[in-house]
């Protein structure tokens, strides 16, 4: 039984509304809103999505954890991303830019969380020592897959896998994310691509 701590993105706790209860069938799961610092220890698998991935990386750099999973995160808020966050209060704009071309899903966006983008801390990637799984998304127009690949490049013990989704990976492919988290918890150092 693994202890998961999950940091959601712009949708708040609702981002994990599939993954969290399914993980909780066999593990302990706690959800931490982006506004509070997570309580972690060396047994924790820390999972961050979107802006939660940035905060998770910051946390893991300062406080060692057992494993780290960064979903559609970024190394630092780019001007493009800040610009997006200013416009994403428009629901239709957010929806169309967050999902991939094949999806009919509607991601959650809480406007007050968008405002955090411009003031996020920058994680010190070189200080992250635990096994890390970086999950990027091919059609991510918001954070971009390139940013996920930079996280992969900057974290020494990291693996990279890419989903065929937009930024809203958890709305589009929650079961696929679940399968990656389950496999990571079982063997944090196994390459998820090789395993497939």
């Amino acid at each position: 039984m693994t202890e998961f701590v999950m940091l959601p993105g712009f949708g708040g706790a609702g981002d994990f509304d599939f993954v969290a209860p399914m993980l909780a069938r066999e593990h302990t799961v706690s959800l931490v809103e982006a506004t509070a610092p997570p309580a972690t220890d060396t047994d924790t698998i820390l999972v961050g999505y979107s802006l939660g991935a940035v905060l998770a990386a910051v946390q893991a750099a300062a406080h060692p954890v057992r494993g780290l999973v960064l979903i559609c995160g970024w190394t630092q808020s780019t001007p493009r991303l800040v610009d997006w966050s200013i416009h994403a209060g428009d629901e239709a704009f957010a929806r169309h830019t967050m999902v991939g071309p094949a999806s009919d899903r509607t991601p959650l966006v809480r406007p007050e969380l968008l405002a955090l983008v411009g003031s996020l801390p920058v994680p010190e990637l070189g200080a992250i020592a635990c096994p890390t799984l970086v999950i990027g998304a091919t059609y991510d127009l918001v954070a971009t897959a390139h940013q996920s690949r930079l996280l992969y490049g900057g974290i020494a013990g990291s693996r990279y896998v890419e989903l065929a989704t937009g930024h809203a990976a958890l709305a589009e492919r929650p079961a696929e994310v679940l399968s990656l988290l389950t496999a990571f918890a079982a063997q944090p150092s196994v390459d998820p691509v090789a395993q497939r």
Partner: protein
Amino acid sequence: MIAPPPVPHTDIAIVGAGFAGIGLAVRLQRSGRTDFTVFERASSVGGTWRDNTYPGVACDIPAHLYSLSFATNPEWSHVFAAGHEIRDYLERVTDEVRGCVRLNTPVLDMTWDEHRGLWMLTTPRGSHTARVLVLACGRLADPYIPVIDGLAGFTGEMFHSARWDHDVDLVGKRVAVVGSGASAVQLVPRVAELAEQVTVFQRSAPYVVPRADREYTDAERGLFAKDPQEIDRLRSQLFWAAEEGFAERAGDPTRTEAARERALTHLAASVADPRLRELLTPDYEVGCKRILISNDYYPAFERYGVNLVPSPIAAVDGGAAVGANGITHEVDVIVFATGFLAAEQPYAAHVRGRDETLAEHWAGGMRAYASTSVAGFPQMFVLDGPNAGLGHNSAVHMIESQIEFVMTALAAGRVLEVSPAAEKTWTERLDAAAEGTVWTAGGCESWYVDPRNGRLTLLWPGFAHAFRTALADATVLFSPAAGPDEAARVGDRAD
């Protein structure tokens, strides 16, 4: 004195030419093996999709997902394929291995010869020996017809939905349909278009959700043909979307509630008559039985001449079917949409391992290591066997997981056998996982559960991707590094 002709030998004998048998044969051939034989009792391949030709027969899993990953098909006409389209597809897949398929060849007896380390197969066309036996006999292959008082004396025509009698013209007839499961939901609307009167005998009402079907455009099919990766992308999307359906059945009350609401809203939108709606409302938890998809089942009951009897047929009296309430219904034809022998597979009685038949081994319910290997039955694999069924995703994906298990085991090239301890540990783990789930505690009677003991023996109580991972992990038993006691050791470790 003339010596008897030698008994023909095949390295791998596969019994059954449906998705599982043909799929394995193609994988074997492509891996460079040529010494295998597929035995098929019928006169053509296709399994379920050969047997079921009733009006309206179709698959309720999207076609691109309900096909083999290594033999995809750009030509699927609709999101959901009709039965004949799937059968044609399997015929085309079979072309690759047709020379190895023996049609009209039922295997009457399969016995392990301990002395020679071979399986002996008896067919009406002679005997065969095989090093490895693969049972790919299906799980919904032998029709089940309930015992009904007076049925033998019925004066009209009767047949099972999977043995449809196309010589019987239903136009203007009074037809009784017994059952309201997956087959009935598809055939009732079609029969209602032909018959003068249709009486559906419903033991318990199913949950029915909308069927989001549509035709693929020429452009889409053209793209699938030109760029096979487009099919892979679609398959991946369909697979992971289907996986979400498992949450409705296990552990997430919000999603269970949403699934129930989706079905009941569909019912309310389709049926105006409150009394009829009440009869069509299930009395068990959603997911306990297969959730069905249809846009025309509910509306069929609003047609003149279509009646719903909320009970099984209690008796048949000459030309009349009698409901549990004693009301008689004069009918010309009885269609049994009553499902299949699932919990007790008929083939099991014809397989004899070291000490017992497979039916004897499974007297307490089907069991196997990794759903595929059975203790006391060396060099034998069961496809579509214990706990390999699924309610929320593609059965073909499950079959492929087992095919890969078999391929890995065969590649190990050693005597393949599991210990009773490994089988027991695996079974106990599954029994524990099934406890308290909607299938065992959902308040319904379904074919997923063995009625002899209440064990969930037909269904895998988890995600489809978890089945694949579990089986991949389970092949460690057959790895060259594993010692003779490995089976027990792996079994102990599995929990």
